[in-house]
């Protein structure tokens, strides 16, 4: 490894290509922590948004009109307003209204930091799309299959959990895949509320070290890799879930 760092240092001295964020231990540490934050942020948001999608689609099958209407308003609101403004709304408008908690050192601090607010706002944003995606999957499940489960005595929740959801997930996996990739890309927006994710630390590094171009290329490569790995994993999942004789 050290040899590689030395080589990059030499490249900088000899050709002016400034890859300081790789060969310098401090900058490398900053960048890696940023990447780790992005991965964490994306993973937590994906999990929460899927949960929101499942619960929302379940509520939409409910007979309670008010519940259904509430889910509908939530979806339309989050789908038709800018995710960045949503994030500001959560962080700057709702944030100050939250109670303060006392931390381990006896100092009061806000209940949620910027990371938590980013998680909340991004999850609700992507969750609104997930509800619609799961709902269309649920609707595509054959009514007769549900009737068969009903005639066997399964309860409403059991039918949803063991019959409808597994089939719906298989039907809507491509659309879900798309939305989650989009979510992973949208985590860059957390830059705006100073969550120290990849874009944020990258901007710190390029203003400290004046290597905008090199940093940009690194940044774009990282995100393309991130999306690539995610798509690869989802394709594997799709293949694992494939049932012989079902779908195409």
């Amino acid at each position, binding site marked *: 490894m050290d040899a590689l760092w030395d080589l990059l240092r030499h490249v900088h001295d000899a050709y002016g290509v400034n890859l300081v964020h790789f060969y310098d231990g401090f900058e490398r540490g900053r960048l890696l922590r940023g990447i780790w934050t992005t991965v964490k942020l994306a993973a937590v948001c994906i999990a929460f948004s899927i949960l929101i999608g499942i619960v929302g689609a379940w509520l939409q099958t409910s007979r309670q009109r008010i519940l259904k209407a509430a889910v509908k308003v939530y979806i339309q609101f989050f789908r*038709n307003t800018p995710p960045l403004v949503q994030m500001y709304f959560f962080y700057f408008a709702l944030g100050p209204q939250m109670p303060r908690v006392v931390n381990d050192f006896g100092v009061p601090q806000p209940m949620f930091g910027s990371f938590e607010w980013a998680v909340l706002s991004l999850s609700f944003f992507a969750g609104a799309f997930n509800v619609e995606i799961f709902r269309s999957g649920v609707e595509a499940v054959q009514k007769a299959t549900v009737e068969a489960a009903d005639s066997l005595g399964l309860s409403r929740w059991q039918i949803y959990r063991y019959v409808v959801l597994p089939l719906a997930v298989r039907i809507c996996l491509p659309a879900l895949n798309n939305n989650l990739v989009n979510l992973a890309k949208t985590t860059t927006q957390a830059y705006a509320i100073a969550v120290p994710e990849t874009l944020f630390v990258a901007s710190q590094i390029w203003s400290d070290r004046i290597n905008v171009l090199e940093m940009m290329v690194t940044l774009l490569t990282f995100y393309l890799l991130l999306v690539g790995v995610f798509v690869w994993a989802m394709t594997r999942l799709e293949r694992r879930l494939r049932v012989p004789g079902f779908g195409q």
Partner: protein
Amino acid sequence: MTTGSVPAPRLTPRWFATAALLCCAALAAGEAGAQLQAAGSRPGVLATLWKWTPLVLFGPPREFGGFALNIAVSFLAMAIGTLAGLVLGLGLVSTLAPVRRLSWLVTQFFRNSPWLVLLFFVMLLTPFQLRIAGVAIPLPGWLKATVGLSLPIMANVAEIVRGAVNSIPTGQWESAESLAFSRLQTLWRIILPQCVKRMIPPWMNWYAILTMATPLISIVGVNDAMTLTQDALAAEQRSELLIPMYTLLLFFFFVYCYPIARWTIQLERRYAVRN
């Protein structure tokens, strides 16, 4: 080809109910805040919102900015992105393998990069002015931001074109070929006119996504509605204004984007039945 008239978005009672509900929520939040403060000397929340509305919508006097700038940027970025996307899309269906592969690479690159990173890329790495034949043409921030936003649109429009062209049965190509049309003629005269209808709903969908991405330009220092809302809040220094002001801004976008979304769904249904 029948050119059926495009139906206008139907503003259903539900739409009005939702809009009214949001208004009420904003007002109620504002009023609650005002009551908490109970500072008689200061103007109420509603009056303050009203005072700042012109600024947020149209920008400072004698300057172009605010929500109008968001819309202008969205139009321009969509126009640039669509034109570039058409060309790139034709590259994706080219018979020349190198052209196809290069187009594929470009498309994948811009489709999978985060919008905000592309925006930084264009903002920081293009010069602030262009020199053409000794004449300096300044490149203002908003124009660079527009170009930055048009890049992902270009890639996604290209994908729409590819999908639509591929959805036309090969029989159409063969019959055109047998009539001695060239490939470009076939594409331009026969295939694309048939694609237009199925391209419109996804294209409109991307327009809505683009419009909702325009507040990103506030991050790179353009005077859009987002920036001006924050300016107004900084000038007022009143915490009870936070929720109403941000709600107002969300509301502006909702009122603009929701009808587009409904309209898109209507067109999708219409064309789905036809085809």
